[in-house]
């Protein structure tokens, strides 16, 4: 028995540099937080923004590098470095920067401690980035858990609010439940194909003819995998945790869950269906079809009957997830040509929109983070016209109004559905978006037209701190810019078609 040598995989340091930057930033953050007694709150937010911007710059370099040298799969087939991954990484790092900025003043207002919040944001971003680039089911699972565990803590991080703790507990129990389903799906797919590698599964399925027994195991595996991911992206009928968790969690954390959490889980779903399971489209497409239709309808209808704005936006996020599912459904018809860029575009646009919307909500809920009832928005148009205007832009965009980014997003997925002759799904989606428009209209009427009621003048005045102002203005600018001049973002999403398989 001679000493066995271990073959270490070659590591492409440039490609994982964004992950390393964020990871070391998180470590430094935690060390400083442990060593200093009184911490300068704003510095942690600024530090996190600097990290995120540094990561975005490196991601731009990698994007350029892929343009020249092509996409590749690195570290023993574990991570795919392609335009798809970079598009998601830039989106996630951008969301990290925006949410850290909006958290800074939130923490001061709520008198919370919390360099840990930023460390957890960064940790969740690393998990999300690993998920979007993973080329192995196990790496995907590890990324998913890194993201989820950080989000459980973040949801429960407002220690004085019982709602926040309840939200953390519910998210934790149901998230763990979903992870177990997801993992069982991986195990069964591994059992039937003999590999956990995503492109490996794709190769096996495109070449081998299955005997009956293995096929049953594979189908059960695909079903469990979709259930697990459907929980994470919150589509009907796996949505029931979403309203409670979104309402109870601290509002900036809600915006982070709705942007980064959806981004990562949808990107993982996209990669699985386009790389691992394209030959099994006939099997998973009907499931996605049902999930998409249920989500757009149930999400829109239940959103309209809510009285709490955070719950409304949670249901509207379910309906938006349904729209993204429409993009995935069209991948099942004709491959990734139309569906993949449309879904990615939707994800990017929705992330920015939802961060902008929830930032305004977090300012309007006032100290204590409890006033998310729609009545809190009464008279916002008179008190803070600029804030109300920005909120109006976000709401119109979520409704899919032309000249805002939301129109480009919805147009993309419905066009993809129509191109594949899924007319039923396209019509249902359009009807549902009209119903959902009622909800956005209700908030707008409350802001601009509602008469003041007695006691309104005793409410705490809404303060717009500088950092949150930047987030709102930036998100509103992005929304209008993409609405008027969408070409560059559409081109970037189209570039993502060249997946590393």
């Amino acid at each position, binding site marked *: 028995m001679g000493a066995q040598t271990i073959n270490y995989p070659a590591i492409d340091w440039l490609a994982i540099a964004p992950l390393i930057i964020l990871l070391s930033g998180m470590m430094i953050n935690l060390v400083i937080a442990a060593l200093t007694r009184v911490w300068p709150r704003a510095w942690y937010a600024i530090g996190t923004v600097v990290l995120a911007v540094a990561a975005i710059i490196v991601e731009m370099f990698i994007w350029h590098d892929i343009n020249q040298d092509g996409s590749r799969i690195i570290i023993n087939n574990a991570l795919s470095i392609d335009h798809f991954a970079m598009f998601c990484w830039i989106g996630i790092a951008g969301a990290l920067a925006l949410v850290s900025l909006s958290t800074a003043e939130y923490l001061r207002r709520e008198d919370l401690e919390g360099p840990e919040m930023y460390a957890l944001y960064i940790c969740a971003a690393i998990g999300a980035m690993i998920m979007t680039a993973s080329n192995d089911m196990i790496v995907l699972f590890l990324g998913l858990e890194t993201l989820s565990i950080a989000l459980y*803590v973040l949801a429960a991080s407002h220690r004085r609010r019982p709602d926040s703790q309840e939200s953390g507990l519910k998210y934790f129990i149901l998230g763990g439940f979903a992870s177990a389903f997801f993992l069982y799906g991986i195990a069964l797919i591994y059992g039937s194909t003999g590999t956990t590698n995503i492109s490996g599964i794709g190769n096996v399925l495109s070449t081998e003819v299955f005997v009956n027994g293995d096929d049953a195991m594979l189908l059960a595996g695909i079903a469990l995998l979709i259930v697990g991911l459907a929980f994470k992206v919150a589509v009907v009928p796996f949505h029931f945790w979403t309203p409670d968790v979104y309402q109870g969690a601290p509002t900036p954390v809600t915006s982070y869950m709705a942007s980064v959490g959806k981004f990562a889980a949808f990107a993982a779903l996209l990669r699985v269906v386009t790389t691992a399971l394209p030959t099994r489209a006939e099997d998973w497409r009907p499931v996605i079809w049902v999930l998409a239709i249920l989500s757009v309808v149930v999400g829109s209808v239940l959103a309209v009957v809510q009285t709490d704005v955070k719950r409304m936006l949670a249901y509207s996020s379910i309906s938006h997830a349904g729209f993204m599912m429409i993009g995935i459904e069209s991948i099942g018809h004709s491959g990734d040509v139309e569906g993949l860029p449309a879904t990615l575009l939707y994800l990017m646009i929705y992330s920015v929109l939802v961060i902008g919307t929830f930032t305004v909500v977090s300012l309007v809920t006032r100290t204590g983070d409890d006033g998310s009832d729609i009545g809190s928005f009464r008279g916002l148009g008179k008190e803070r016209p600029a804030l109300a205007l920005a909120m109006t832009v976000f709401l119109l965009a979520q409704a899919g109004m032309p000249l805002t980014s939301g129109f480009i997003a919805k147009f993309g997925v419905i066009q993809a559905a129509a191109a594949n002759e899924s007319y039923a799904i396209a019509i249902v989606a359009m009807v549902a978006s009209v119903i959902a428009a009622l909800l956005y209209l209700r908030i707008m009427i409350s802001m601009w037209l509602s008469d003041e009621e007695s006691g309104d003048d005793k409410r705490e005045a809404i303060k717009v701190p500088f950092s949150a102002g930047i987030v709102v203005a930036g998100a509103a600018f992005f929304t209008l810019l993409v609405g008027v001049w969408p070409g560059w973002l559409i081109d970037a999403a189209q570039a993502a078609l060249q997946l590393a398989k």
Partner: protein
Amino acid sequence: MSALVAAATPTTTWYLVLAAVLFGIGTVGVLVRRNPLVMFMCIELMLNAVNLSFVALAKRLGDIGGQTTVFFVMVVAAAEVVVGLGIIVSIMRKRPGANVDDISALKG
């Protein structure tokens, strides 16, 4: 007699069935039990059922990959324990003996 013994020799299928049964018990447990700690234990049971199927499948396929996966899953489960117990303890400190039906301020 020898045929009976041969039929009773465990195969990987036995382990897969056992894992499926354990996973089912865990699922039902999460759905029907009302104590957050017990629900959490049921989730751990589900994860370990998956571990058992990974090992059985790795044995069937003659592939080491499935067995190494189990270590990753165990680490993830341990991390979940830390976070989950932290959340449960912080709730129980405010409301001793609460079950998940008591913790239901959020609805609509």
